[in-house]
Structure formats: C-alpha cells, structure tokens
C-alpha cells in the first residue's frame, strides 16, 4: 500500500488531504474519544433514556467521521436515517414498553464477566489482525474527481502554473486562451479541478450511478425488504 502512496506522491503538485493531516487527526481524536466514551456509557448506564442519548452521540460521531473522509452523502444519510429515524424509533420503543427510568437493570457479575471476556477476546483478535495487516498504511485521499466543465476562454494569468505547463501554453500572461473539452480532458484529474470554471462534485454522482446500475438488484431487493418489514412489523406489533 505504501508503494501505491509513493506513486501518487510522485505525481507532484497535488493537493491531497494528507497535507491537512494535523488538523484532521486532531478532529479525529476528539471525535473518536467522544464516541468511545459515549459507547461505553451507553452499554453500562442504567438509565435507558440516557443510553439512547449516548447512542445519538456515537451515531453523530460516525457521521462526522464519514464527512471527515469525504463521504458526504453517507454522512448525510447517517444523520437522516439513524439520528432522524432510528433513534426516534428507539425512544418510541422505550416509551411504549414503559421501561422504568432510572435503575432499569442490574448486570450480574457473571454476565458482565462473560461480556468482558468475549468482548476483549474479540478485540484482541481483531486488533491483532488489523495491526498485522494494515500497519503504517495511510489513506491517501484523492479529491473527489467528477468535474463538469464548459469550454471557455481564460486569461493565462488566471490559470495555475501547473495547468499552463501541462497544456504547454505559451504567450503573454494577459492573453486569453480557449481551453476546449479535449484539452481539458487531457489534464490529469488533480489539475482539472484547478481550471477556473470547472465545477467539482463530491462522489454523490458516482454513488447514485452505481446504485442504479451495478447494484440495481440489491436496490430493488431493499425496497421489497423495507415494505415487507413494514407490513410484518405492523402485524406483529399491533393490538388485536
């Protein structure tokens, strides 16, 4: 993996997210710490409503992480579906089952031991595998690529030097040049987005495209699944 990173690094003048490593790592640390704390509190607190609120923090943290790595769409979905719908469902569940607020339950030591042993064992195994497998592997963030561009003229002054060099433009800096579509496409992706007038999308279009092409069957299946779950849950949960 580091080999791949090297190759990417050699392509030269390229704004990668890696350059913002430090602020992002700080953000990550804060979010991760908050999530872990909330998660632990969630599974240990005796108050069910508090647990639901801690869950919200964890879910929000996950959404923040998604946005941090550039998956804006998934992050938005996470917030809408999880925090907007699922947590509300949980709250309804808590209310409908009239679980006592406060000292809801006590965890016997035997069960706690079982949980700790299994959980720790699982973590050791996972962590061992992950550290062994991905030690020192960096995520090399590439910019979201899809770029829309209409052919237009630019003042050479306005163009970034790498773009000028790459296209081999010569002339006085005040001249206007027309960059047409073939020329634009000949640029490497990281330069395309630096051409003025180029519109940059996230990967939303790609996600949408692949859901409706490669994963169309899964998508249809999920739609049936949601309907079936809806009908079934109504049958099971309703009073007779």
């Amino acid at each position, binding site marked *: 993996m580091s080999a791949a990173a090297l190759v990417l690094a050699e392509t030269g003048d390229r704004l990668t997210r890696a350059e913002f490593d430090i602020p992002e790592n700080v953000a990550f640390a804060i979010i991760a710490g908050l999530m872990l704390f909330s998660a632990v509190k969630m599974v240990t607190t005796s108050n069910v409503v508090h647990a639901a609120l801690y869950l919200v923090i964890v879910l929000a943290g996950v959404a923040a992480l998604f946005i941090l790595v550039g998956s804006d769409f998934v992050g938005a979905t996470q917030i809408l579906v999880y925090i907007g719908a699922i947590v509300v469902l949980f709250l309804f569940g808590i209310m409908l089952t009239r679980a006592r607020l406060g000292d809801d339950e006590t965890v016997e030591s035997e*069960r706690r031991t*079982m*949980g700790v042993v*299994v959980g720790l*064992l*699982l973590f*050791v*195994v996972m962590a*061992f595998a992950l550290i*062994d497998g991905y030690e020192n592997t960096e995520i090399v963030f590439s910019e979201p690529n899809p770029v829309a561009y209409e052919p237009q003229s630019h003042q050479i002054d306005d163009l970034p030097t790498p773009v000028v060099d790459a296209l081999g433009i010569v002339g006085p800096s005040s001249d206007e040049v027309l960059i047409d579509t073939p020329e634009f496409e000949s640029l490497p992706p990281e330069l395309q987005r630096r051409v003025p007038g180029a519109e940059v999308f996230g990967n939303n279009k790609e996600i949408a495209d692949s859901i409706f092409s490669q994963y169309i069957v899964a998508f249809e299946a999920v739609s049936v699944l949601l309907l079936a779950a809806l009908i079934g849950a109504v049958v099971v949960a309703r009073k007779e």
Partner: protein
Amino acid sequence: MSLLVLAAESVPEVSFTRDANWFLENVWIVPLLPALSFLGILFFGKRLPRGGAELGIAALGLAFLFAVVANIAWFDHRDNYDYRDAEPATELDHSAGVGDTVLDIDGESDTVVLAAAEESEGGEEAHPAVAVLKGRTWFENGGVAFAVGTLLDGSSVMMLFVVTLISLLVHVYSTDYVKGDVRFTHFFAFLSLFSSSMLFFVLSRSTIQLITAWELVGVCSFVLIGHWWEEKPNSDAALKAFLTNRVGDIGLLVGMIILFFAAGNTFDIVTINEKAVAGEISQTALTWAAISLTAAVMSKSGQFILHTWLPDAMAGPTPVSALIHAATMVVAGVFMIARLYPVFYEGFGIADNSVNGLAVIGAVTVVFGGLLAFVQDDIKKVLAYSTVSQLGYMVLALGVGAYTAALFHLFTHAFFKAGLFLGSGSVAHSVHSFDMKKDMGGMRKFLPTPFITFLICSISLAGVFPLAGFWSKDEILVGTGGLGVGADKANGSYHLMLIMGLVGAALTGAYMTRCIYLTFFGEFRGHGHPHESGRAITVPLIILSVFAVGAGFLNLPPGFLAGSAEEPTGWQERFGHFVEPAAAYFPPIGHAVPSWGLAIIASIIGLAGPAVAYWYYFVKVDGLAKQTGEKLTELPNGITSRNAWAGAGHAVLVNKYYLDHLYNDVIVAGVKGPLARVAYWFNQNVLDGVVDGAADGAVRSGRFVYDNIDQKVVDGAVNGSGFLSSQSGQGLRRMQTGKVQQYAALLFAGATILAGIFIVVI
C-alpha cells in the same frame, strides 16, 4: 501361478459373443418373480384365500425352476463354450478393456460374454471360462456410467439355486409355522422381498447395485427379525441387528468408493476385478479397500467381534432364522468376498502371506463361535453360534485362498443349517419354547421325523464321512496348506488356520451332540403333549436332509474312487469347476491337493469331540439321570467336585452302572476278564478323567468366554458406545440453556476463537 498368467496371456484374452443361452441371458427374471410376489402379496394378499402365501410359493417355485434350468444351462455353457467360435462384437469398442464394453453407451441392452482361456495345470485343452454379462446403463453422471444388470457366473448361478430352493422350502414351512399370525400376509410379503433382495444381490453387476441389494437385505432382515415387534426384546434385537449391520455398511460404502476411484471411476465389478488382478490398482488402495470391506463382512456375516447381533436375531420367527442363516443375509458377506475376490486376494496378499486379516478373523470366529455354542440353553442360539462358527470357516477359507472350498461349504452349509433351524422350529413349535433344558428332552419319541432329519443334518454339520459337511470342511482344511498338507502351496501355508480349523471341527461335533441329547434324549421336561408336525413342516425337512447327505458328492476330491489328482473325472471337482471363474477377472489361485492323511486325522479329531460329548451326556448324565430318576441336563457337579467324589456317591453311582456290564461280560465271556479289568482300570483312572475333564473344560471355557468376553466385553462395548454417546448427548444438551444471550456469547466466542486460531496458525 505365473504359469497360469502366462498361459492366459498367450491366447486372446477376450472375445465377445451374443449367443448365450436364453436362460442365462434373462436371469434377471429370477429376482423379479419374488419382487412381484412381494407387491402382489402387499396389495392383494389379504384378499387371497391363503393370505398371500400361495403367491409367494408360486413365485419362488417358478424362480426355483428357472434357477435349475439356468444351472443346467450353465453346465453346458461352462463346458462347451469355445471362445474360438465366438464372433467378435464388431460394433463394440475394441479399445476398451474387458468388461468396459458392457457399459452400453447407447443404452441398448446387449449380452456380452466375456471369455478368457484357462490352461489347466495338466496342460490339457483350454477351458474357456465365461461370465454372462448383461446390462443397461442406468444413468450417466459426470462421465461415469452407472450400469445395472446381471453378472452371471458359476458362483452366482449356484447361489440362485441355493437361495430359491431354501426360500421355497421356508415359504412352504412358514404356511404352517406362522399360521394364524396377525401379520401372516405381511410376513410372506417380506419373506418374498427378502429372497428377491438376496437374488438381486448375487446377480449384481456393479458395486452400486451390490450396495443397494445389501442394504435391502438388511432392511428386510430388520423387518422380519422384528416381526413380533410388540415384545420389546424383539424390536430391540431388530434394532441391534440393523445398527450393527450399519456399522459394516459404512465399511462397504467406503470400500466401494475406494475401489471406484482406484479402478478408474468405475462401479463395474468385472472391471474392478480385472484391474486388481492385472495389478493396475495400487496395493495401498487394494489393502484399504479390502480392510473396509472386511468390516462389512464382519457385521453382515457375524464375524467376531461384530457377531453379537446374530444370536439376538433369534428373536425373529424360526423360518426367518433359517433363511437368514442358510441362504440370505449372513452369506451375503461371504459371497461379497467371493465376488470381489481379486481385491481381497491382492489386497491382503493371500498368495504369499501366512497371516492376513481375513484368515485370522475367520479362524478366531470358528473357535469362538464353537465354544459359545456350548453354553446356550436356547436351541436356536446353539444353532446361531454354530452358524457364526461355520461362517468363520468360510471366511477362513477365503482368507487362505481356498475359494472353491469356501463356496462349497456355503453350499452344503445352507442345506444342513436350514434343516437344523427348521427342525428346531418344529420342535419348538410343539413345545412352545426354545429352551432345551426346561422344556425339551426326549423329543425323539414325540417327533420322529424332525428327530431323524435333525440328526442327519447334525452329523453332516459335524463333518462325518461321507455326508456333505465332511467334504466341504475337509476341502477347507486342505486349502489352508498348513503343516505341509496340500501339495500345491500356491496360496501360502496357514498353519495356525489349520489348527484352529481342526479345533473347530472337534467343537462342532461336541456341541451338536450336546444339543441333540438335551433336545431329543433323556426325559421330557416340558409340559403338555408335543405332537408331530404337519406335512408342510416335515417335507421341507426331509428334502433338506437329503441334500445334507448328498450335496458333498458334487465336489469329490480328485483321486477319490477313480482317476488321479492330475486328471479328475466324473463328479470329482465338479463343483469347483462349476463355480470357479477362470478368467481375467479372477486371481490365479493355486489349488491344494487333497490329502488322505489329513482327511483321516481330521475325521478322528472331528469325531473325538462328539465322542467326548457323547460320553459325557449320553453315558454319564443319562446314566445318572436314570439312576436317580431326576431330569438331569448336566452333571450336578463337574470336575471341580470330582476329587471329593472320587470314592463316594458319584463314582459309586456311575461305576455301578458299568460294573453291571462288566460283570455280565465277565460271566458271559470269562476269558475277557483280565482284559476287561485292564480296560476298566484304564477307564476309571485315565479315560474318565480325560473325558470328564475335556467335557467339563469345554463347557467351562465356553461359559467363561460367553460371560466374560461375549457378553461383557463385546456386547458391553457395543451397548456401552451407545450409552456413552447418549450420555455425551445429555451433556451437550445442557449447552442449550434457552438463554438467548448465552447463545450469543457462544456465537461471538465461536467466531472469535475460530478466527483467532486461523489467524495464528495460517
């Protein structure tokens, strides 16, 4: 041996023809007839006047007639078939090896006769040996053709005769024996299916067919042993029989699968055999296949240590026992070895070995079964252990390479053992019990016909010259090639097997003498008035005893009465000639030359057993019984108390009896006085001790083996493993607590531990 191989190679090995006798080609009708009668009885039996029995008898009768004709046709085929006349089947693929061609690719049914030349050792004219193969591709799967059809050669045509005859007689006998039974119709239906399965078995062409038939035989025996299932011991016995057989079935399955791959993806028995003979299958594969198949034989043919189901299976109706022990079921194992003989022959290295699994198991079973028969009070159990012992002879014979002898013993044993079982059934039928000690005794007065036939069959079983059992047993003993007997030692020298065989012979006579005494002599100890059986019972008995007397003459040893060992004539070796395939699918076994010396020694040893038993039961026990007027079945005290009795009661009582005779002798022929006195002294001081000791010792060792090894160790192990698995099942069951979170813990922990192991190890 190598001469044979060379000779076989020097002539065209294979030729094909299409002109076998109609009866040999269409022999599939034989199993079909009882199968049809099974269906007929099942569906219409209850509406027929005789509850379906007539259907079964008619079907078996027809099958029997067919079998007789087929046997005659086989004689002709075997002797007169000349491969030179055979037209090559041009439309068949010549590139295929022997037997391959019978997998009719086009699905049409052809008859292919397979021949290879045999050059007898005397250098006389070659006898072509042929097997009539007929088949149809059942289906093809993954390039492998599953063929079904008939493989008819001497051994299977002989089995057809035996199975149909015994089954016919059993059917007839059963009309009386199970008369009035609640499941009369059901009984006959399964009797027919049982026969059909066995016939299907002996004709099987492919190993798949063989396994199917083998299992069918097992299922039928399960149903029939458990015929009176309302009583728990009966259904227990049926269950045990089935389960024990199942253990062996796995061996069969594994063995057949090994052979399937080893022989190049084929189920065809002839092809497998040929490749085994030709050395095209690796020795390892053959050995493992032979071992697996031996496990199957052990369970099916009641070999030590998987024999325990056989005595229990006596819970079934007596005709079923007769059928199981004589013609079907238990001989299936022996026949299977014969069918795949090259596999065993090469796999165990029978030719150049002196100890192999098959021979050892057989020898142990001979002695072990014989000893156990001593201490049974149930007449059918005596016979059951006797069967175990006799099956041991057959397996032993196959284990030492005496192929013909094994099949010959199977053949003769079928008649006298069926006769014995049916005879015991007729006795038991009249006293409503199988217990010899409690409910029998003196039966000869009430049941003269069963008595005579039982006696004849017993003598035959004991191997007394010149009844059937003598010839077959003698042939086995010669075949061992042990201690220098049998001039041609092509199959190795099995000294131990010879000795065990001789011991077994002595035991056989002894326990049968005991059985006859307890059943037919002495005072009647039962209740009521036993009555002679009806014709349906006595006629089969008479027919079987005729065979028990005469069947042995079918295979007189060469040089007997006429001719010489080199040039057998007439009836000599007729049977061997009949059953032994001399073809590329049969190993080049050597033939032992019979020895007069061994025959005499064996006869003496074989008679010594009954003599001792005779002395013990007929002379001493009977004498004591007459003396005291009690109904004795054993001496009240054996050798253990002999010292204390030396000058007292027992001795006095017995001696007095003899003194009378001696005094008479002295008076009538005074000159014999001194001689008699010497004889008397010898009798009193030497013979008596030896005889008493031998009889008592045999009984005691039998009892010991029965109590400690058979019942405790073997049976205990069989039952114990069931108990153990049941107990561990109980333990595992506790894991299932019903608590969902413990299940979840098991799930996560299971995944984690598995993952952990794989991460670390791989």
